[in-house]
């Protein structure tokens, strides 16, 4: 069972949250210059790595705000929790967020 530290509410049980998948997705543009293939990739392709994953989470049963989590998909270890508008933290060789 994961314990996730909501930036606003503090540590809570994982069942209060919903994972919204990959974060930091950049919308391609300007729209009139985007071909269908690029647009299709933007809409559907996922990074889906085994290991470090930067993802959006929603504190659904709490403050209902979105934030970012850096999490390892193989160990489930959470390396960082940060705000939606923050840049992704660097991960050092030991696997901790800097």
């Amino acid at each position, binding site marked *: *069972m*994961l314990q996730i530290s909501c930036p606003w509410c503090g540590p809570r049980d*994982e*069942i209060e*949250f*919903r*994972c919204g*998948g990959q974060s930091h997705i950049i919308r391609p543009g300007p729209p009139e210059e985007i071909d*269908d*293939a690029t*647009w*299709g*990739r933007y*809409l*559907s*392709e*996922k*990074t*889906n*790595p*085994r290991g470090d*994953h930067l*993802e959006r989470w929603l504190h659904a049963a709490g403050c209902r705000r979105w934030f970012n989590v850096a*999490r390892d*998909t*193989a*160990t*489930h270890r959470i390396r960082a929790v940060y705000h939606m508008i923050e840049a992704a933290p660097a991960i050092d060789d030991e696997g901790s967020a800097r």
Partner: protein
Amino acid sequence: MKMRYSAWTVFKQGLGGQRGWKPAWRSPDPKPDYEVVVIGGGGHGLATAYYLARTYGIRRVAVLEKGWIGGGNSGRNTTAIRSNYYYRASARMYEHSLKLYERLSKELNYNVMFSQRGMISLAHSPHDVELAHRQAGAMRLNGVDADFLTPAEIARRVPILDMSPEARFPVFGGLLQKRAGTARHDAVVWGYARAADALGVDIIQNCEVTGFRRGADGAVTGVETSRGPIATTRIGVAVAGHSSRLAEMAGFRLPITSYALQAFVSEPLKPVLDTVILSPATGVYMSQSDKGGLVIGGGLDLYPSYAQRGNMPVIRNVLGAVAAQYPALGRVRLLRQWAGIVDVVPDSSPIIGASPVPGLFLDCGWGTGGFKAIPVGGTMLAHQLATLTPHELAEPFSLERFTTGALIDEAAGSGIAH
């Protein structure tokens, strides 16, 4: 010479103290090159190799498996086989698979224990009843058997189900597919392996693919493996939850997210359930194996994962729903719990056919439901690899649909949750 299995061989081996059985397939070393390389020794990979050899006469085929065959999802699933889909494209494909299952034991000379015990999807509200009728109509229009069951019929068929009006999940009816059922999952894998091997296919276990070799034009020229490089110009990828990792090695991305899906088996009981039963309201389904264990499955875990274990909240939801719906099972103990990694696609339909890399072809995205599709998955990927054109049944399921927008949204159509 391959041993032919029959009642007589079983009898004869019994007299000889069971000492005369031969290994069912060889364990060859990899050759330097093959006409076709199939990555993934699950049901889909092995069925692909079998149909390549049997239907298209291509016998210089290797199946590369990083662990042991059937060690992935094909040996970890809850064995439900059905074709109760909504869209015509899905119905045709899954029904084709079900028909192949109906004669698979005979075709492979291997008892896959396909048992057409039927599958009931329960309706827990008048609204669910409407949807069940719509689903039955769609199935019949597509030539798939479907019946609507009244609460009285369900009570007779599934006596352990709580049918009382004050039940936590009251039952208003159900949708039955009579020809649905279960098969022994290992036997499906082993049956295809034995039959492919007999046709000359090399099944190479403990051989992990770690990279792709590409020519100047970008087309594949071979694979890197933990047992050295192997040259080939045609590669089929059937690695279930690890498809994104193989795509990454080849330099492209897929519309796939990997999740853990759990399953549970109880201690053996006397016969209490003679069908597969599903509650769309809780996502929980159950059948009883021939050994007596209740085989139980539920929804996906809550977040993307490559950890083959599974998280506690889902265990609680699944077992809580079982205890609520089947009060008599409340004290039954579980023997085992496990998880497999499944490849989930936004429209809950598989991806079959060409990839962005020439010579590399995909059979993936089956998510939580690809065991039932093993015969048709193998048929479609073999056709693609042999003829370099998509199988007729596979055309709607190309990767291109995520660009054209022609999604086949079975999550909305048949209400499968993922």
